[in-house]
């Protein structure tokens, strides 16, 4: 696989890597005819994120490296620790990098990322990939009974009211109102924690379909990374969810890419007796 990303799209790609780094410690690169997919899953298997860049996103996008290669494309898993530093400083990428070339060859175990910068400087990074397998989560969003579409800045503005360290958040909807509040499952600190609640009217959403009243609790941390990506592109966010225990899916799409994050929700968010909240796992499978 070989692809070239031009100009400001390098920053977009970098933002996707940053958003994925908030989810898991490993990143799966999965090139296919549909485009280049970047995926990550959290260690507890409770969060999954996927960014797919269509071939139109790239200045050049080709799958096989040489005619002799088999038609099967290379799928690889990289350590986030190796990849993230390359895309950490987006302002300097914006200023200096003219294009970025990513190539993977089946014969060796390297992913080669080259930054062609101003003043004729080329930076080449060789990252070894760990195994060859693909990651895919199965999530039937069409089966979700509740679907919302929030305008670009809405979710970010709402999430801003909760402290940065707030781990989990509870979202409650009825057809008339949507509310979010912070979730605290440790009863001893209950006395001293600050509680925040925010309530929104359906009119604030581009689309608001709530067929079943539901209250779901999920992890905010992984969502924040995704929201900082979507805000920078001013894209409306679709939210698919159902009752507690079933996963919630946030997604955006654009002509050039689509991005999804799927989060597990707690089975019994109202119960404060449970010490170990039993959340469902996001069903992420590896396949060859």
């Amino acid at each position, binding site marked *: 696989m070989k692809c070239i990303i031009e100009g400001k799209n390098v920053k977009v790609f970098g933002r996707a890597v940053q958003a994925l780094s908030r989810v898991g410690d490993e990143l799966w690169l999965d090139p296919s005819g549909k485009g280049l997919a970047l995926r990550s899953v959290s260690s507890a298997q409770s969060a999954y994120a996927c960014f797919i860049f269509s071939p139109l996103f790239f200045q050049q996008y080709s799958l096989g490296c040489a005619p002799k290669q088999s038609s099967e494309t290379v799928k690889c898993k990289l350590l986030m620790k190796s990849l993230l530093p390359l895309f950490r400083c987006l302002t300097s990428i914006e200023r200096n990098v003219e294009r970025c070339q990513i190539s993977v060859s089946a014969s060796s175990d390297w992913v080669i990322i080259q930054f062609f910068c101003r003043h004729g400087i080329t930076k080449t990074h060789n990252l070894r990939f760990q195994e060859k397998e693909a990651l895919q989560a199965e999530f039937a969003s069409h089966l979700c009974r509740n679907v919302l579409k929030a305008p670009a800045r809405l979710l970010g503005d*709402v999430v801003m009211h909760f402290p940065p360290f707030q781990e989990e958040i509870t979202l409650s909807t009825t057809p008339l109102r949507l509310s979010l509040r912070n979730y605290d499952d440790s009863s001893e600190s209950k006395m001293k924690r600050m509680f*925040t609640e925010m309530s929104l009217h359906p009119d604030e959403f581009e689309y608001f379909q709530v067929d079943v009243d539901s209250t779901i609790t999920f992890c905010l941390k992984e969502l924040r990374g995704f929201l900082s990506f979507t805000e920078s592109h001013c894209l409306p966010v679709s939210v698919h969810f159902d009752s507690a225990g079933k996963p919630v899916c946030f997604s955006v799409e654009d002509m050039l890419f689509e991005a999804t994050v799927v989060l597990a929700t707690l089975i019994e968010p109202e119960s404060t007796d449970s010490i170990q909240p039993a959340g469902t796992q996001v069903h992420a499978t590896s396949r060859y």
Partner: protein
Amino acid sequence: MRFRGKIVDVACLNHFTRVVTTISKLTKTCVLRLNPDKLFFVLSGKVANGGVGMWCELSQANFFDEYQMEGCNPENNEICLEVVPENLSRALKTVQNAKSVKVKLTKKHCPCVTVSAELPTLSSISRVVTHDVPVDVIPTRLWHELKEPSVPDFDVSIYLPPLKTIKNVVDRMKNLSNFLVIEANMNGKMNLKIETDLVSVTTHFRDLGNPPLGDGASQGGRDPDSMAEVRVDVRKLQQFLVGQQVNPSKSMCNIVHQSVVHLILLHEDVSLQYFIPSVA
């Protein structure tokens, strides 16, 4: 015991938020004292905080459009609450663009100061956000600890140089020593100095001016050139300086020789006093 206040003006909300944020940088917990005319943020100088004391006074009319309170009983028409100012600051910071902000004393899972705001939206119906900040009600028998500290019988009173300048100096001195000496005289001279085995550094300020002495000043026989000094923990001074977000209209300090330095910052509608004790 009831308290209910409403802030409608954006500038007042902004100013109030900045005051609370400054307090949150000075101390982790403090007491919020409310009476019909004023609000106070108080930290009594106990050994637990290293003897540092703080007194911040605001006139409620300068911030709130509506303000109603009822103390425990008619003789003690005040409310004293122990609060973590950082929680209050965080709650206020998120509602800066609100149409109106209500602050009230409520009882949720514990006594709370609830900040609730109506936020403007593109649709006709506002977004409502509430933050419940947990507080501890302080019983009346402990109120004697929360009185305004009396101005000590000071040896020298002097206007401070710009806080930013002092902060720059103190930040660099902190790298060299844990203790810093503040000395000043009644002729407008102030020195900040540190002394270690290897090095001593002094920064001199001149022509600062001295505030007029009150009646019955005890400085009658004092030589205006003689310096009064206090040796303080540099981190405590730095903590005071780091929190300051707005330039005060007046800033001064009183020094009791080898005892305590009393820093006073006056803004239009807020006064902040900070006491740092000397160390041996």
